[in-house]
């Protein structure tokens, strides 16, 4: 049975400086895959490289030899002496390699647990390996299991449910207030990366219109163009509060920009439709007292950070459930992987044929009302027939240095005779 090996570094074992040096671009990784699969003893290769990790997945004959080869290869390819990164490398084999891959794909090993990008990156890497034909029977099966497990973890646990960034947390809150955000109007006061990100999330949630108010009208115009919205003058904020539903404020003003006195009459004019203020500025722009007005809600940066912390805790709790799903999947994969060994396959094949023969013999003996002696003769005949039938396939599977991929043949035999059912 060939070994499944995984070698890599990630954000937990290596600092960014080292990860940068080790990272593979898309072209580089296809070159690397190509080079690695030509090496004797390495049968299947897959490589993924993201900003938080570089991992090399291999199916090889000789574990220690393959690991040494891969280490040397990484060192040569990236032009770093092995000594500089060897301590940061982790090497997993078989069950542990499978588990590691499943955990990565399910985003349990990510810096932000539950972030969805990693699965896409691994799929991309698999596509690369499939194109280079460096993924064979084992990696094909392994990767499909990994995608399946990742999907299961995502749907059966709440790992990706809760927002873990300020801008997503703001959208999550807005949805708890307004339900659908379709048709709602947004006002951005000031500018700033986080605030603009929040506006972009809101636009993706189909808000109707975005207004931008900036002290410098020209800057406001430019931002408004980016959001396909409309710029208003800073002095016009108060009157526009009647028509907007979500206000995101992020100015550098030293004092309050929107006070309780400004908002109080607006609530009545809005006929109590809810209004939601998101205050990202420090010092704050929005009077916190507004939160006490009816149907008005104010969240400042600390409130949002509080939400995120709670959500991260939640995700970690959900991650425990994810580990359970993965444990199960690792065992299932091991069963399949072990079945690819020659002996169990031949045993299973023989058992299947014998079972078929037995039931046919029984029927014939009954139908012909045969004597015990005749039945025994029939049994012996069937036994030697099965031996003859199995002789060539057995020799073929057992032959050392079999041409081509042994696991491919085993897999084919198992499929042809439906041995996995």
């Amino acid at each position, binding site marked *: 049975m060939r070994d499944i090996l995984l070698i890599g570094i990630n954000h937990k074992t290596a600092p960014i400086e080292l990860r940068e040096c080790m990272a593979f671009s898309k072209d580089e990784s296809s070159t690397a895959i190509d080079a690695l699969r030509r090496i004797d003893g390495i049968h299947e290769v897959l490589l993924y490289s993201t900003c938080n990790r570089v991992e090399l997945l291999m199916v090889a004959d000789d574990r220690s030899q393959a690991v040494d080869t891969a280490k040397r290869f990484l060192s040569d390819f990236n032009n770093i002496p092995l000594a500089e990164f060897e301590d940061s490398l982790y090497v997993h084999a078989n069950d542990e390699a499978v588990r590691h891959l499943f955990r990565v794909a399910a985003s349990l090993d990510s810096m932000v647990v539950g972030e969805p990008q990693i699965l896409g990156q691994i799929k991309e890497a698999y596509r690369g390996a499939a194109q280079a034909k460096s993924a064979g029977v084992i990696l094909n099966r392994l990767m499909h299991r990994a995608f399946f497990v990742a999907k299961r973890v995502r749907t059966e646990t709440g790992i990706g449910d809760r927002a873990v960034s300020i801008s997503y947390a703001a959208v999550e809150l807005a949805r708890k207030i307004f*339900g659908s955000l379709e048709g709602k109007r947004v006002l951005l006061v000031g500018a700033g990366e986080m605030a603009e990100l929040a506006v972009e999330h809101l636009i993706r949630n189909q808000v109707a219109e975005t207004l931008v108010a900036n002290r410098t009208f020209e800057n406001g115009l430019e931002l408004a163009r980016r959001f396909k919205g409309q710029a208003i003058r800073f002095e016009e904020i108060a009157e526009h509060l009647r028509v907007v539903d979500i206000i995101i404020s992020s100015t550098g003003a030293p004092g309050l920009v929107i006070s309780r006195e400004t908002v109080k009459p607006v609530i009545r004019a809005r006929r*109590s439709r*809810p209004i939601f203020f998101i205050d990202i500025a420090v010092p704050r722009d929005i009077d916190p007292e507004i939160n006490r007005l009816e149907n008005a*809600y104010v969240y400042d940066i600390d*409130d949002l950070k509080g939400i995120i912390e709670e959500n991260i805790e939640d995700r970690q709790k959900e991650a425990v459930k994810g580990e359970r799903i993965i444990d199960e999947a690792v065992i299932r994969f091991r069963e399949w992987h072990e079945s690819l060994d020659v002996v169990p396959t031949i045993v299973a094949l023989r058992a299947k044929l014998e079972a078929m023969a037995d039931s046919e013999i029984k029927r014939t003996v009954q139908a012909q009302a045969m004597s015990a002696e005749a039945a025994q003769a029939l049994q012996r005949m069937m036994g030697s027939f099965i031996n003859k039938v199995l002789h060539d396939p057995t020799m073929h599977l057992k032959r050392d240095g079999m041409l081509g991929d042994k696991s491919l043949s085993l897999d084919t035999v198992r499929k042809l005779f439906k041995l996995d059912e």
Partner: protein
Amino acid sequence: MEAAIVISILLYLLSAAGYLAYFLLQKSYLQRAGIIVLLGGFIFHTAALVLDGIQQGHLPASNMRETLSLAGWATAGVFILLNYRYRLKILGVYAAPFVALIMVVVSQLPDEPAQATRLFKSFWLVAHVTVIFIGEAAFALACGVGILYLLQENSIKTKKRRFFFKRLPSLDLLDSTGYACIVVGFTMLTIGLITGLIYAKSVWGRFWSWDPKEVWSGIAWLFYAALLHERLTVGWRGRRSAIMAIIGFGVLLFTFLGVNLFMEGHHKEFTK
């Protein structure tokens, strides 16, 4: 007690348990189980009422036990309709235990034979009782939605969000469902009062006789009318509307139970 009623009570209790489990564990199959079991309970309950009606030859609403049972039936029915109209699945966590509670009370009340059978043969009376109960069921659900609204609003306002924030839907959905319940309830209450007046005229010769139940129903009607009026004119919504829905249901409960228990009047004949 008949088998159908016993089965329906058990199913209601089971449904209530399902919804509570759904609320705590957030597994959608629990909610689906909750509504299906509730539907089962409702079917048995309907069968029991129909059998009762055939046996007695009139609408089974001649004592406290029967009227309460009818009220529970209406609440279950209105909730089932609402469940398919609005996607407010979580309301079951209020409705199912509420119906189950009513029915448990029903099972504890004595089943006295009806006396004033003559009065029950009128179409106007059947219409009056049925429609009023559907209206009251809608108000009961409006009250439940109002409670959920206040819980969710509180968790958003105070920013202590853990438990309810995750489990309850958006304020907007709660508010609009509550409003829909009140509109339905008010329409039914209005029709119910009109049919009641017509029936009173046909039996006692006058529309209105200052019977305590009439008076309290009138008060409840005015209360809900004010609530709707304020919502349409100055936009009473959200928190205020939710509180009003809860108080309004309190008035209604008093009209239904308090008047029966503590006051005299011609409704007494039906609801001993």
